[in-house]
């Protein structure tokens, strides 16, 4: 199923990669993420999943730490 390919960032595991498909949440949070380089089309890799503690993702050479709340608002197409 196509739907299986889409997950929230918060559901991803360490070492998995994917492409950002959409960002939910208010304009403040959304625009902050976009300024930091997370926008639809961005390729990410999960360095550390949030259980326990924060999520760490890699975008190119950059590393971002995110809380669970915001990780739930980022929709990813898995495995791309």
């Amino acid at each position, binding site marked *: 199923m196509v739907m299986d390919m889409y997950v929230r960032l918060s559901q991803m595991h360490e*070492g998995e*990669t994917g492409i950002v498909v*959409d*960002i939910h*949440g*208010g*304009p*403040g*949070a*959304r*625009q*902050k*993420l*976009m*300024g*930091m*380089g*997370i*926008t*639809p*089309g*961005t*390729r990410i*890799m999960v*360095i*550390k999943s949030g259980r*326990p*503690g*924060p999520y*760490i993702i*890699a*975008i*190119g*050479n*950059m*590393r*971002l*730490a*995110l*809380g669970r*709340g*915001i990780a739930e608002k980022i929709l990813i197409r898995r495995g791309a």
Partner: protein
Amino acid sequence: MGSFTQGLKVIALAGNPNVGKTTIFNALTGLRQHVGNWPGVTVEKKEGIMEYKGEEFLVVDLPGTYSLTAHAVDELVARNFILEGNADVIVDVVDASCLMRNLFLTMEILEMGVKNVVIALNKIDIAKKKGARFDIKKMEKVLGIPVIPTNAKSGQGLDELRRVIKAAAEGKIVGNPISPVYDEPIEREIEHVSKVLEGTPLVEKYNVRWLAIKLLTRDQEVIKLILRYLGQTKMDEILQHISEVEEYYKRSLDIVIANQKYEFIDKLMHQFVTHFGEVRETLSDQLDKILTHPVYGIISLLAVFYALFKFVFTLGTPIQEWLGGVFDALGSSIAPHIGDEMLRGLIVDGMIGGVGAVLSFFPLVFLLFIAMAILEDSGYMARAATVMERIMRKFGLPGKSFIPMVLAFGCNVPAVMATRTLDNERDRILTMLINPLVPCSARMVVITFLAGAFFSAHQALVAVGIYAISILLALLSALFLGKFLIKGEESPFVIELPDYLVPAWKSVIIHSWERSKEFLRKAGTVILAGAIAIWYLSNYPAPIGGGLSYAEKLGEAVEPFTKLMGLDWRAAVSLIFGIIAKENVIATYGIIYGVGESEVALATLMKNAMTPLQAFVLGLVTTLYLPCIATIGAIRAEGGNKWAAVAVIYNLALSSIVGILVYNIGLLLGL
């Protein structure tokens, strides 16, 4: 920076956080700089003079931001500075090792229609190590502006940067910058909005395309601005039109535009930089997993902060005491030479004492800033913020606000100054308001004396109890003030984990020195005025001790109120003197009872006059009431008069309520 900067050409530094912007600023200006705040906000403003080939330029360091939206004060400050055309040249400091994201801000700047932009392509050494190859000539051609590769830490490229800045400021280099192009539906809408705006006076002051693009993203500030010229009907029409485009993309246009901007940047980058290698886990990632872990991370955090605390207070306190001694000695050596008694008191006790008090905080504040700059520069600060996030967030605070809270156990003054490193204005103000509730070492003196004198069997328990109550109140106050007093949304938690780096030492020291000078300038006046006022109250019309001084009169006047918490005029007077420095509360009792500094005698006398319950309330109220004047001065320096006043009123109200409650509940329990 004063009138001598007038007429100088203005160079603005823009860029993302963690790109080495401060290091470049320090390298360009050296010691000729000034740290302050942007008007009306708690955002740090740094200015300095750059000299090149006999000519001087004013360099303004804009806040480090990822974009230029209206959602954060820092971004608005940077954006308005550029928008108002205050800069003759904008130097955009770009991290070469993280080019894509950095060019996003570059595009936001270029989109504003400014021409005189110069890129400092910093950390070029790190980017090369990571495998990137740049064609600088091509990059300049593609972007239409000068690009100078730099390594701010080693100084490489900075001379060339100075040369290009000068040439650009003199109009010898004029850029022809590229600006992002969007999909057809977006471009059509930009054109549509631009046409409407072209009939307004906005054209004279702003770039119409930029206004149109920002309107499409529903930027609140731009909507407000345009509304003034177009009126509600016309605006509704445009917004309706925008909704239709959003319908087409099935998304808000801010996402669509950001997305297309990145795609645009990606296409450009292909022309001048070879791709970075594949993403893979590095040693630094392994370290991050430990340092942000809820258990190991907190253990490492405690170790780091123990070291920081030790560094600041073990090194700073002896210097502080030595400076205090120097001023005491200076006072006593000058005293015999002043005949007039009033003048002598004013100079020796009021002024020299006051200046001594101000200066004695300088070493602590300076060392604190050095420690903070090392934490920031090394990259550890971001990890500390990450690991504390979950705990602090429960009280509506970001993880980083843990740092000022810990420092407060030593002294609230450097702790309040440390709020400067928080990223968001709401968080900065909230953290500085609750900071005085964390007991500093001066209050520990009072708490342990009272606990020892009145509760010898349970001294530790009582002392810990007072600490626990005040920390709990600080956290609850954060929740309360965050909900009702301070506007602004809680920032969502996302933070960049920058590469671990060895700090640029020279930059660390220059930066800390300038920040500490700012403390002296701003907090100094409050501390000095406070010292003189207290000296006057305690010496006129007759010295304290005989019941005639204004201080004692004031104590008697407020006694009806303090009686509600079981405290007499002696306590009231002591608390007044505690405003100078909290350890004065006990010293003042000594003066009133005429036993000087003999703690044993004082303990006996106080025990005869007070019940243990009253002593407990005194300890608690001493901890919670007005911050000492140095702390008030620090809050004023960081947050301005308004928040200093709020801190004073809030602490006074809170301590009164808690004091009255605890005393009366205690009475009911038969204590």
